[in-house]
């Protein structure tokens, strides 16, 4: 994938530095806070799982109790270590005791710092070790499997019933999908807990639960065996439980997570402070687990106009990248999102799509870019939609995209049928093969429509970043600079879960996850 847009590289560097400043400004404060879901994630890392009599997840029960007891500002780790020392029981047993009420969290005797630190770090090492072994397992399996040609074929299943998801996921894999995502139940991102066990009822998608992860993982490994490939599994580390879902994914060998720094704020009206604090730890977990993240810039274009707001995608990608790097993710793990959403009725619209896609490629040469299909302007005319998806596939192979979320001919109608997915995979296989080396063959006219559009997008992104740097990312969200959506600093859901850290706050996983060097196969 050569450089074809004749971009002013100094503009590119400048844009990146500006994004870096924006990220630094954010990191100046998020470090002083923790959140309920971060501590619940720590609980899960320590092996605390299951639900109480009312079906409330034990991590929630425990953290809730600690929060009401005003003990949470030091972090779960310290208290838990002391409890382990004190009662010499496992975190799980201790939590169950708390849940049934035979143990009052306040009753735990404190213990000397060097003692609990030593216990915590040992427990944390073990936890990290088991996640590492999952990562190694993935790497082995990939090494054994046939390397898939790029772009990778990514499809979603969304029946609402995990057992049916498993069947449809297997079908997709057998048909040639490289990546399968299980879309979540429509409302889950607003739940401040993660549901438990296998689920069979969901709207628009299926609940993200650890057991559901396991069931679909199993189905895909089976299909992988059968076809001599490795099929990647995707879910959503987003909403009010970003870090917890990352932990579950790390344990069940998910390969990708939708894990955007701002999606929840913009599209789920989740409080921005909560989200910024959560995304940092959530991404650290993904980084350590060798999971590739996907960002959600595509959503800007489904909400605002794709031609007018193309530059907002670039600005957001640069910010997402800088924040991701600060959580220890390697460039190869940062699947920046963008989309093919320009109104198909636009004259030369295809040229504009090529410009945008090529520009993303040239700005982020090492990122496994995630390219999203036309959705907003497609209609119930399934034939036209099928064709538009084909054009999308062509632009993808022409511009060297990596993760191709295949468009569905029924996008405007329903969540994908078994056959819709089959047809989308057939389209991807046909176009990618039939135009395999088109990208190597074609150059763009100097100063032509495509190059001009790309230069323009870059300029606008630079100005936007400048503005954001001036006012700060939070203010830019308040002003609706992304997706035309305005969010207030203290509004939205989940602010009550944000807790100011005590100066003795300790989370053993920060050092462990951040120390780690970029994991080679991160990009898969």
């Amino acid at each position, binding site marked *: 994938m050569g450089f074809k847009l004749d971009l002013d590289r100094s503009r590119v560097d400048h844009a990146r530095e500006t994004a870096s400043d924006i990220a630094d400004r954010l990191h100046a404060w998020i470090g002083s806070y923790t959140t309920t879901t971060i501590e619940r994630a720590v609980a899960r890392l320590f092996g605390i799982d299951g639900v109480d009599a009312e079906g409330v997840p034990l991590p929630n029960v425990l953290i809730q109790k600690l929060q009401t007891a005003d003990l949470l500002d030091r972090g779960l780790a310290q208290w838990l270590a002391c409890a382990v020392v004190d009662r010499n029981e496992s975190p799980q047993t201790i939590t169950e005791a708390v849940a049934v009420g035979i143990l009052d969290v306040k009753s735990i005797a404190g213990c000397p710092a060097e003692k609990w630190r030593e216990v915590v770090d040992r427990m944390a090492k073990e936890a990290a070790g088991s996640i590492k072994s999952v990562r190694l397992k993935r790497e082995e399996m990939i090494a054994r499997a046939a390397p898939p040609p790029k772009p990778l074929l990514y499809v979603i299943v969304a029946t609402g019933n995990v057992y049916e998801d498993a069947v449809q996921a297997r079908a997709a894999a057998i048909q040639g999908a490289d990546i399968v995502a299980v879309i979540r139940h429509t409302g889950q991102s607003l739940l401040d807990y993660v549901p438990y066990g296998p689920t069979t009822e969901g*709207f628009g998608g299926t609940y993200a639960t650890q057991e559901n992860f396991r069931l679909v993982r199993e189905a895909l490994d089976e299909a992988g065996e059968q076809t001599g490939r490795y099929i990647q599994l995707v879910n959503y580390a987003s909403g009010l439980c970003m870090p917890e879902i990352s932990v579950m994914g790390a344990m069940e060998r998910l390969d990708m997570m939708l894990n955007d720094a701002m999606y929840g704020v913009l599209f789920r009206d989740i409080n921005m402070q909560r989200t910024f604090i959560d995304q940092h730890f959530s991404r650290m977990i993904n980084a350590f687990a060798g999971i590739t993240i996907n960002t959600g810039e595509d959503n800007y274009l489904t909400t605002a106009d794709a031609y007018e707001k193309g530059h907002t995608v670039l600005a957001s990608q640069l910010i997402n990248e800088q924040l991701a790097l600060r959580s220890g993710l390697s460039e190869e793990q940062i699947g920046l999102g963008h989309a093919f959403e320009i109104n198909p009725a636009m004259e030369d619209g295809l040229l504009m799509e090529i410009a945008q896609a090529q520009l993303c490629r040239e700005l982020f040469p090492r990122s496994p870019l995630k390219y999203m299909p036309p959705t907003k302007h497609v209609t119930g005319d399934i034939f036209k939609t099928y064709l538009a998806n084909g054009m999308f596939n062509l632009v993808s192979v022409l511009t060297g995209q990596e993760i191709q979320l295949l468009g569905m001919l029924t996008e405007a109608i329903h969540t994908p049928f078994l056959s819709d997915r089959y047809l989308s995979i057939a389209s991807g296989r046909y176009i990618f093969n039939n135009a395999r080396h088109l990208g190597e063959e074609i150059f763009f006219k100097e100063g032509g429509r495509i190059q001009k559009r790309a230069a323009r997008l870059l300029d606008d992104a630079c100005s936007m970043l400048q503005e954001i740097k001036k006012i700060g990312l939070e203010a830019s969200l308040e002003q609706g600079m992304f997706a035309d959506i305005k969010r207030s600093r203290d509004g939205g859901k989940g602010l009550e879960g944000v807790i100011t850290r005590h100066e003795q706050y300790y989370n053993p996983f920060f050092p462990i996850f951040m120390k780690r060097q970029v994991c080679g196969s991160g990009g898969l």
Partner: protein
Amino acid sequence: MGLDFTEVRAYGDTINDGAMQLSFTLPVPSGDEAREAARQLALKMGLDAPVVTEMADLGVDCTFFVLYGKCKHTVDFTAINIPKQQQKVMSFKEVNALIKDEIGRKLVVVAACTGSDAHTVGIDAIVNMKGYAGEYGLERYPEIEAYNLGSQVPNAVLLTRAVELSADAILVSQVVTQKNIHLENLTELVELAEAEGIRDKVLLVCGGPRISHELAIELGFDAGFGRGTMPNHVASFIAAELVRRKKMKDR
């Protein structure tokens, strides 16, 4: 082409040939038997001479078919009539003029995308300043005071706000229709409104890509709007309907 509108048939190659295209999946392993099963299903649907033109193995003992056949069934087109929005569409200017002259105060409109639905693009297109395809949104109407509560608003919350603001009309958007969640959501709103005894104090209007006026009426709304609705369509209805009701009261 001799056409009998009481017995309308599908038309492919030659008039009244009944030609149709189908595609579907059967949970049976691909093969001659599967093809025959598809054929038999088509026959049961009333298709003559069904031909499977494509059979694809979906890999999990499921088979996808594309099929063509000639449908025996006919429809009596002359017998069809549909409840329609009677209100003729007025322009931005006309609507504001009407409100000013006939009602003499600003109309209050509260809008939201209810339940777990987060699809605001549609309702925003109707309500926000910017509007849709060049047509100003309700917020821009000098004679309308519009409140857009945004997405994922519980029906209860929506009603409370409506009461607080003593709204003249409530606008609800429902885009997600899986498992008929939109019907549940919309029905719940009507029931709550009745329970709280405000049903007849306010106009209930819903919209979304799968909403039709017909459906809205069935569900107990005053009007429904589908794909491609423009802000002034809705404004026209609200203004005219409220004027009508006012006049009736005044008698």
